[in-house]
């Protein structure tokens, strides 16, 4: 009986068997890369908004404190999105005719809220609390990046669980003095020494059990 396969099939088979391991590895590596990529995490993706609000101008330029608008960041899980009336505190006086502010004035006049596109989104099975992070010396910029340099808001960090755990496992690397939490320009000096001290001072625990966030 004639051979069904040519001798070269042996080589092909060997290559395929060894190759399969690499191919599987490669596929996993690609998947791992994709789920960490901005395509998936929305990291660094600018979001169009109904009003072209610039944090760079308001925070970096004018020096408005984060808490002027995000009022509940120190007391609630949710930092708060400012109501239209907060915008109008100033814009009833300045730039009253600016075209860019028309949606704000319309909202204030009609009572219909501005619908913002969400930039930082966690899945519904993750429960994040702003107030405790702020109280324990985690700066706004640590997670939200240099908001004072962002024209349109974008998500500076990937917000993956891996990323959260980086700090939950080693908070001393990221912690800062409480008075610097809202300081966008804070640059740690000698974090290696200051960090562990602050962790002790603020009684920061390394909460890595699942029910810290998932329930």
């Amino acid at each position, binding site marked *: 009986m004639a051979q069904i396969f040519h001798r070269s099939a042996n080589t092909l088979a060997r290559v395929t068997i060894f190759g399969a391991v690499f191919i599987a590895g490669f596929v996993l590596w690609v998947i791992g890369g994709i789920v960490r990529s901005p*395509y*998936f995490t*929305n990291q660094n993706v600018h979001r169009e908004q109904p009003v072209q609000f610039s944090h760079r101008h308001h925070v970096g330029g004018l020096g408005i404190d984060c808490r002027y608008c995000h009022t*509940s960041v120190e*007391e*609630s*899980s*949710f930092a*708060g*999105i*400012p*109501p*239209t*009336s*907060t915008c109008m505190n100033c814009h009833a006086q300045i730039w009253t005719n600016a075209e860019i502010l028309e949606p704000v004035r319309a*909202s*204030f006049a009609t*009572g*219909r*809220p*501005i*619908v*913002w*596109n*969400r930039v930082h*989104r966690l*899945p*519904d*099975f993750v*429960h994040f*609390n702003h*107030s*405790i992070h702020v*109280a*324990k010396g985690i700066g706004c910029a640590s997670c939200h990046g240099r908001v004072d340099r962002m024209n349109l808001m974008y998500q500076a960090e990937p917000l993956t669980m891996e990323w959260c755990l980086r700090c939950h496992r080693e908070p001393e690397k990221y912690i800062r003095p409480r008075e610097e939490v809202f300081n966008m320009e804070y640059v740690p000096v000698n974090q290696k020494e200051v960090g562990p001290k602050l962790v002790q001072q603020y*009684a920061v*625990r390394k909460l890595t*059990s*699942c*029910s*810290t966030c*998932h*329930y």
Partner: protein
Amino acid sequence: MSESKPLDFTAFRERIGDLRGKEYWRSLEELSRSEAFDEFFQSEFPQQALALSRGVDRRSFMKLMGASVALAGLTGCRPPQETIVPYVNQPENLIPGRPVYFATAMPLSGYARGVLVESHMYRPTKIEGNPEHPASLGATDAFTQASILGLYDPDRSQVVRKMGEISTWSEFVAALQPVLAEARSNPAGVRLLTQTITSPSLGAQIQQLLAQYPGIRWHQWEPVGGHALREGNRLAFGSYLNTIYDFTRASVVVSLGSDFLDEGPGHLRYARDFSSRRRVRQGMDGGMNRLYVIESTVSSTGSVADNRLPVRPSEIEAVGRAILAALDGTAAPAAAHGEFIASLARDLQANRGASIVVPGEEQPPVVHLIAHAINQALGNIGTTVQVIDSPEVAPVNQLQSLRELVTDMNAGVVSSLIILGGNPVYDAPADFDFRGALGKVAFRAHLGLYNDETSLLCHWHIPETHYLEAWGDARAYDGTATIMQPLIAPLYNGRSAHEILGALLGGLDTSSHGAVRGYWFGRGATEASWRRWLHDGVVSGSAPAPRAAAVSTAVPAPVEGNGVGIEIEIRPDPTLYDGRFANNAWLQELPKPQTKITWDNVLLMGPRTAEQIGFGAEERSKLFNELKTRVAEVEYQGVRVQLPVWVVPGHAEGAVTVYLGSGRAFGGKVASGAGTNIYPLRRSSAMQGGGGARITLTSRSPYPIGCTQEHQSIDPKVVGERGIVREASYETYLRDPAFAQTPPHGEVVAGLEHRNESLYPPFVYEGHAWAMVIDTTVCTGCNGCVVACQSENNIAVVGKDEVVREREMHWLRIDRYYKGDPENPQVFHQPVPCMQCELAPCEPVCPVEATSHNEEGLNDMTYNRCVGTRYCSNNCPYKVRRFNFFGYSDYETPALKAMRNPDVTVRTRGVMEKCTYCVQRINHARIEAEKEGRRVRDGEVVTACQQACPTQAIVFGDMNDPQSAVAQLKKEPVNYALLGELNTRPRTTYLATIRNPNPELVKAATADAEHH
């Protein structure tokens, strides 16, 4: 399918005789230990018998799978884009993300139960009891908890309807004008029909209407709101007074057919007070109280009785008379139950002024008279029993009131009828033929929460506001008033009774706020007091002072001829009440406290009666593990109703019990079709039933029942051997407080001698160590905790078909055990949440670490990691894990989205879930404490079940804190762990049940048993 055999009493008796020492059983099926039952219990996953109710062929399977793969590929790529919608003007005191609590009250049959409502961004999500309200003291019952679902119920009536067509409020107001014109010319033709009203402001509006149009008549009708109680008190005291009880001062309590721990407007308070004299602790002052219950069907109160006497409903009166006679010493106790009555009377005599005899709400008036005559003879009136003016605006004989209305309607006298709430077409006595009479009225308007049987027959239907949507006021059982404030604007364009009356009074835009506020400001309220009342949830000083009252001593002679043949007792449903909650899926799926049946009403009877009618045991189909029972036909006063038969150990023989509230023809998707309507059996001459019923088994094919008792429960073989239930009498406890520590039968189960050893070094819990203790002595099995858990944790409802397949999702189940004679067993309730084992068997078997341990000892369940292998559930010895076999959670209905607790993930298909000790509440408390730089205080974390419990049977806290309540309780000698010998080290432990039976009766019973 196994063959149905008749109940075999000799087998039961032999089995009970065989039992070594104490043996507990959960059902007659288990007691009989049939082969089919053993097989059912041995099957590894009974709930997986068949995934789908209908088979799926290969073609449709491929289609479905193809579609889901394609859709998964499309949607699974990127997270969805969401929007954030802030306020335009944010309310001043609102902090987004933090709930706010408002005090209000839930009215049921007119009477208020004070509540605090949790509101997230002005969305009410959870009901808690108001600690400052006398009828609640912080506790809630199942109805109150489930009323949040009632608010969001998408089946609620949403538009004004005229002859079934959509109309408007202003058109309705216009249509009222001819009615008002007629009210001037022919006032007798205009009628108002309301439910029981305790609302002072609504009462004032009605009085104003009656004054403005003299001659208009006001009728009241409430199907189960204590007709007999009202008449009984009138018989006893000469006028419509109410009695309230102080159980904190009562050492002996006798219930004459009363379920005071689980029924009636004051039951939450009564349960709290009653349990305060029942908590047995080391070094407690004073002894334990004693409860005698004389009743027919097994009620929650009866199930925790120290001495229970099952008698036919008609005999309760005779027993009451015998007690009264025995107290006077005028007559020797009758032969029947002579020993019981004599002992009870001696006990009462010994506790003059410190005892209470409670007549059942549904008992005939003469029983009330007898009970209060006994109370008077014992000097209880004025001490443990207080008499107050009725909190109702106008207490009347409602049966008479409705009868007059129906008579007038039939006579053509009534031209306009305005029905403010209620569903009389469904729930009026059958002989009134309300439906027929209603057709003779020219103008019929109905205000109701649902488009129901009554609104179908009315020209106009106005959607009613839920109590969380409108201003109002109501009085509690003791007369304390509460201003009810709305939590949310009407979701479905509802109108309140205040607004309708306002329209009748000529004010076009009377708001309920204006009406309520106007009333109280007219009576001396100031802005400051008004705000205080709203804040506290009670109007200070509004409770009437107790008054002196003498009980009539002229007890009428007994009427002969009652109770021939089989007696039928008609009672409100323990979970559906009179039918008003029939569209509430939480309550439909809530296992009834004693039978654990969901989604159905059945014919309850004792085992001997079942034997008499030829009923065999329930059957189990092997394919689906469905429990099926035979259907019987009840013939009572010429009306026939078919009901599935259910045998209840302890039910009085020669009597059957049926529950009202099921079998709604119309009134929502959930209500329609569940169960059988009992109202056709209910006649004005016998509202609570009576003798002469005929029961015959039909040849209908067996009917499947969703009874949860045998579901996900601990192996019956283990129950006796391992001491799942541990109990003793108070006498035994005093002699040997550590009785619960002795291994059952005094022997160590073989192979478990080294039960606390481990290969691993012990893990030290340095911070908090959360733990729970459940006191089974005071648990009444009332189900408040089960619904509270459901509401707090967004637990899905699965429907009857799925319950039958054992897939109910309640994280907390209340196991019910019996002990002793099937004709009058002792009953034990055991709430079983997740035990949070320190060495949890579920954790090592999870292949994806979806369930893991945290440093505070919680057994975490991470839904998003779960891949649904169900190994954890298989390995759980307590069977407390629940699996989403299908997508039970409703992700679609907008109203239900708004109802959910935003702090808890809504679980999807294929995910395991279980009790987490309300970890969201723990985390909240921890965050608040850490922000303030302190430890979480004892009592700061309250689990949902603990918060709801009327008897405070559940205690939660940090057992690392030696001062905490939970740590103290763990030191009690009666503290024991379920299946502790498995070395799971459960954090949830139990306090053994202690009952305080009259020693004389125990001796008598023992002697009796030896004699046989």
